[in-house]
């Protein structure tokens, strides 16, 4: 065959092949249920199989997982979720992203908080200087499990780690409060207040301190008013009367140093500020 003809044949053959490939691809559904991940070797096996290129393997697996777990039409995509992230984190335990992203997917998308917590625990174990894993775990306990005791434990741990930002301490204190240990919570908030490095922290602390103090003292005052009424068959004219008759040693002030508001008509004791945090 002539040279030119051969070249033409080669080119058209290539184009034809490309066209056929495209048709072939359109007939295959790559993301059928069957082709979801069947099995993945455990972390060590994959490390061995990677023959020294395991970092890259872990990276690629991570990149793949991000794409895969955001492909919403694969219905059973979470079947091996824990396995995948265990593998990645086994290979490179100090790579932080997988713990964070993995637990995020587990908590938000797969709705499996215990699985997320397991992953975060692992992260914390392998990276003892990192506060963020305990922080995330604490948050999940608080928000989704509503297990304040456990959340408090996590925040406690996180707060103790170097570089833990102030709000962790705040969260910790709040959780203690939620756990119905107002005395301890008060102490913690006081500590935060005293060491506050910025206005936000100080404000937040004062708010909490105000609330805790008020929540402790208002009921007490209210009780004393009732006691007064029972004894003297009338409401006291003011809170100082309670002190005069010796029911309280002195009239407590709120955290701002202002007097509590007493309505002599109804006998209700309230605080000047409206505090927001409600106990759940």
């Amino acid at each position: 065959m002539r040279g030119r003809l051969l070249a033409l044949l080669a080119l058209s053959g290539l184009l034809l092949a490309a066209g056929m490939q495209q048709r072939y691809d359109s007939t295959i559904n790559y993301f059928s249920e069957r082709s979801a991940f069947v099995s993945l070797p455990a972390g060590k096996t994959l490390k061995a199989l990677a023959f020294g290129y395991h970092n890259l393997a872990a990276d690629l697996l991570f990149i793949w997982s991000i794409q895969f777990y955001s492909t919403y039409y694969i219905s059973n995509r979470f079947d091996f979720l824990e396995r995948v992230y265990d593998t990645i984190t086994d290979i490179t335990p100090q790579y932080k992203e997988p713990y964070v992203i993995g637990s995020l997917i587990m908590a938000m998308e797969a709705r499996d908080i215990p699985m997320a917590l397991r992953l975060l625990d692992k992260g914390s174990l392998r990276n003892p200087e990192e506060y963020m894993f305990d922080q995330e775990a604490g948050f999940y306990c608080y928000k989704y499990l509503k297990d304040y005791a456990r959340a408090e434990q996590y925040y406690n741990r996180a707060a103790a780690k170097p570089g833990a930002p102030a709000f962790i301490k705040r969260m910790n204190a709040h959780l203690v409060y939620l756990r119905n240990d107002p005395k301890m919570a008060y102490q913690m908030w006081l500590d935060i207040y005293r060491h506050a490095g910025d206005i936000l922290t100080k404000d937040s602390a004062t708010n909490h301190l105000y609330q805790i103090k008020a929540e402790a003292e208002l009921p007490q005052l209210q009780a004393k008013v009732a006691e007064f009424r029972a004894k003297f068959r009338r409401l006291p004219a003011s809170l100082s009367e309670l002190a005069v008759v010796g029911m309280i040693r002195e009239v407590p002030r709120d955290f701002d140093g202002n007097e509590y508001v007493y309505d002599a008509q109804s006998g209700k004791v309230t605080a000047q500020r409206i505090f927001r945090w409600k106990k759940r």
Partner: protein
Amino acid sequence: MKASVKGIVINTFRESARNKMFYLLVFFGILFALSSKVVSFLTLGDAMKVLKDTGLAAINFFCVLIAIFTGINLVFKEIEKKTVFNILSKPVSRDEFIVGKFLGLALTMLTALGAMSAIFFVFVALSGGGFDWGILLYFCMLGLELLVIVAISLLFSSFTTPILSFIFTVSLYLIGHVMWTFNEFKALLRVPAWKALIQVLYYLLPNLDKFNIKNEVVLGTALNPWTMLFSILYALAYIAALLALTVLIFRKREFQ
């Protein structure tokens, strides 16, 4: 250095430097290293980690290929083409020949590695990763690993065909990176004889993963200077042993 050894070193380097395959591998190594930028776009979070991981892995891979391919042909070609007659019929001992060949190959290898390292180092800096001296440290360790591989391929090249040399060298490279599994095996075994055998193999075969400090370098974890020192010494010792073995074998070699 004796002029004869120097001559062999330079000649070996020249042979590689005029070989197209060599340049091809260097080119692809750099290409893949630079494509790490693309890969890094796909990840969430620390893109620089993925960029460095990919780049280092690419350079690692292609340099290993260079080490193996230039090494396995080295001595074999000389024997095959009878150019070895020109050298050994002169007052050059077999030892000098092997040492010269090794140094020439080492020079070639380190030149390729040096070029790739420099380019990638600048690339990382330009991509926003700053001057990561850790990467250079990794390349130094990789250089040592490559010299071990070169010595291995030279050893095989001195007595078998390129295909067998290739198979043996690649096998030792792969095994060399999973030697840590030997320890796990040893723990599982009961019979002392098997344990002893595994232990012997553990020390006999090259332990290459010690040079693989990619993880530490990219994540910035601390490196124990003693560990590094021992790795360096390991390399020097192992290379010396290999060269010695090669010379021993080569001395008995007859050229029909």
